[in-house]
Structures are given as structure tokens and as C-alpha cells.
């Protein structure tokens, strides 16, 4: 039986090389080997999405991939969302719109949101709800999570006024209703 294998992976732009057992799950690698504990473990059954990360830009559940499979791949975790000391617009929006209560699902929700806005910069509410349907929030805070993603979409489009002002609150509901 193999003992360990070498893995070289880019995480949040930095290169890491480590020797790991093939059976080590990617989420354990991120948390225990690299110390990136922003990626959470929720259900351990591929349901909850708390361990969501981006694999080459695509959101996946890092509890359902082996670390050795990430060799030569590029990953983004919640720790990689900030740049130059500035919060990512989605982080700013989750803060302003109260898009979290306990915070457990938040890293996964934000990474799913980032990927959604990358592929669909002006998503309808229905698209947002579909996109986050693999990320469970047990505080039942979906309403504000949706608002936060809508708010981030506006901020990224450069026509937002709610993110840095006091007007956050409920103005997300009237927009993005679509069909």
C-alpha cells in the first residue's frame, strides 16, 4: 500500500508541495496541512457544501475529492477572496446585507456566489437560488444570502450604492426578480 505521494498545488495563487496519503481528502489537506481553516467540514456526506472551494474556477465540494487529485491544479479558498487588504465585493456584500448568522456555510456560499457572478454577472433571483442549492444554510438565512449575491452583482457592475452606504437592508428584493 502506498504510503505518501507528492502533491504540488496552487492555492490562492501560492504554490504548495506536500507529501500526503492518497486517501487524504482535499478538505483535510487544506485545513490540516495548509492551515486554511476557512474551508469548513459540515456533513461529511457530500450534501452541505460547507467545504466548497473553486477548482480551476469551478465550485466543487472539497470533501469529495482526494488531495492527490488536485496535483497541478489551481484552487481558491475563502482565504483567497481578499486582495491587497480589501474585501472581495461578495464579502463586503455578505457583511452589509447580513448574509450570515452563524457563518458556518458562509465561505462555501461566497465561493459559489463568486463563481456564479463570474459566469452570469446579472443573475435573476431564481438563478441565484438554483446556484446555491448545493449549499445548505441551517440558520435559514437564504433570503439575505440571495440579497448579498444580488448586492455583490450590482457592486461588481459598478452601479451599486448599497454596499458601502447605510442603505443596505431590503433593497435587494425589488431587483433581480426577473421572471
Amino acid at each position, binding site marked *: 500500500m502506498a504510503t505518501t505521494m507528492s502533491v504540488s498545488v496552487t492555492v490562492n495563487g501560492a504554490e504548495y508541495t506536500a507529501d500526503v496519503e492518497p486517501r487524504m*481528502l482535499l478538505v483535510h489537506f487544506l485545513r490540516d496541512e495548509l492551515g486554511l481553516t476557512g474551508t469548513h467540514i459540515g456533513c461529511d*456526506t*457530500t450534501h452541505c457544501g460547507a467545504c466548497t472551494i473553486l477548482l480551476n474556477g*469551478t465550485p466543487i465540494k472539497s470533501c*469529495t*475529492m482526494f488531495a*492527490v487529485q488536485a496535483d497541478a491544479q489551481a484552487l481558491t479558498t475563502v482565504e483567497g477572496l481578499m486582495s491587497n487588504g480589501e474585501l472581495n465585493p461578495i464579502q463586503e456584500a455578505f457583511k452589509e446585507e447580513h448574509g450570515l448568522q452563524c457563518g458556518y456555510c458562509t465561505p462555501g456560499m461566497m465561493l*459559489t456566489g463568486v463563481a456564479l457572478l463570474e459566469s452570469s454577472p446579472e443573475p435573476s433571483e431564481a438563478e441565484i437560488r438554483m446556484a446555491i442549492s*448545493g449549499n445548505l444554510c441551517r440558520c435559514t438565512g437564504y433570503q439575505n444570502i440571495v440579497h448579498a449575491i444580488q448586492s455583490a452583482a450590482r457592486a461588481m457592475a459598478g452601479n451599486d450604492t448599497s454596499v458601502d452606504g447605510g442603505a443596505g437592508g431590503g433593497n435587494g428584493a425589488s431587483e433581480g426578480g426577473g421572471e
Partner: protein
Amino acid sequence: MIPAAFDYHHPSDIDEVLALLDEHGWEAKILAGGQSLIPAMRFRLAEPGTVVDVNGLAELERFEESDGFLHIGPMVRHATIAGSELVRDRYPLLSDAAEVIADPLVRNRGTVGGSLVHADPAGDWGSVMLAYRAELTVRRAGGERTLPIDELFLTTFVTSLEPNELVTGIRIPAASDGEGGAYEKLERKVGDFATVGVATQITLADDGKVSAAGIGLTAVGATSLRAAAAEGELLGSGAEAAAIEAAAVKAAEASSPTADTRGSEEYKRDMVRVLTGRALRRSVDRARAAS
């Protein structure tokens, strides 16, 4: 939860995969999208001594129409099918199903071939491929065979594939005029297993009569099931309401659901009838629009 230890291989070509399968036999498992295998390994329901990762093998990711077929490589991800305009335009049964498999994050990793050979009767692709009358290309070291989808499933989680065989291709007949299909799935919530699913695919001839019909059932038997008698009710009919209802009744008779938290046998059997009717009506509408 930590899987049992295993040897990991990531071959760079199919011959190497086949050699590993020959060498390790039942001890080896192919790792495709991993969305069923890895959870099973975490629960120690599966403890393969050797894992052969086939991610990144381009030949297994083929996805194109050619030679009268739509070729779907076994490593094509559910999300690729769901996001394909070609599929949405010409293979609506495929896109219907791809959009309701598990959840969006699982769809980004899970693969068509991995799901098929996992042979979970609650898996959506089994019934879809039965409705399309798909064929699989199956390779082993030094040989290749074509396997009709009807000969794949033996029982729950068991297929007719030998331990040294790898599915290298899946193909369905290329869409033509007068064809339409639809998938109907009843589930309690996103990501839950289907309570009942029904896949239907029909062809209308120039005279408006049904010249081909495929009906596959999800989660109502030990395997994905073909509702052959229901298909027979449609053939030669004008796909009128009475023929659709007769087919729906036959489909319900073909099912053998078991009671669980999702419903009683009677309920599920009746849902087969209801969903078969809905799927057939949508298939007919789509077939007429494609005529």
C-alpha cells in the same frame, strides 16, 4: 470520515488503465467524478485497494455529434450536458435530466459514465439511456465490445462489466426530425434521491404516428427499468390522450417500487403513471415542434 488506505494511480492513457485493471481485478476501482465512490469510501462501504483515476484522459471526454450518433464520453460531467446548447436544442431529454441530478456543485464533478456504471436504480442517467437506447463501448486489454444499455444493469450497484473492463464511450442515435423527449423527476428537495423519475423519448413519423418510443423508469426497482409494454402502447398510435394514458398505466405496472420515507409502494406506482403521462405529453409537444 477517512477512507481506508489505497494505492493511487493516475494513468496518462487508456492502455495503462486497462493494464492496471487486468493486474488488480476486483481490488481496483475506477475513479471518475467520485461523487458516489468517494462518499462510499468515506463510509467504508467501498474499500478498494487500488484506485485508478481516469480524470484528464481526453478520449473519455469526447462530446460531439458524428456518424449518426451523439457521442458522450464517460467522463463528460453532468454540468457540461446541462450547459450545452446543442443538447438543449436537440436532446432535451438529456438536458432535462442533467439539470436535476444532485445539486450544482455535484454536477460540476459527477460524470455520465461514472453514474451509469455505479448502477444505482435512483441514478437518473440509467433510465434516460434506456429511453434513448444507448450503446456503450467497453474496452479491456486487447479487446473491445459494444454493450446495449439493456444489458448493462444486473441488479442494484451491479453491472455486467467485467472487473478488467472500462466504458470508453456512450452513444445515442443522433436527433432527427420528429423526435422529442422529456424527463420528469419527483424529489423532496434538491440533492435528494428521486422518489420516482421517468424518461421518455418518442419519434413521430410523417403521418403523425409514433414510430419509436423509449420509456425508462428511475428509482422504482432493483435497477433502472425499461417499460417495454408501455412503449408498445404508443407504437403506431397517434400519441393521442388515450394512448398516452394507456402507456402511463402500463409503465406503472412495470414498476416495482419499495416503500420508504419517500412514499408507499402504491403512491410511487401511481406517481410513475402521473409522471409518465407528463413526460410523454411534453415529448409529443417537442416532437411536433421538431417535425
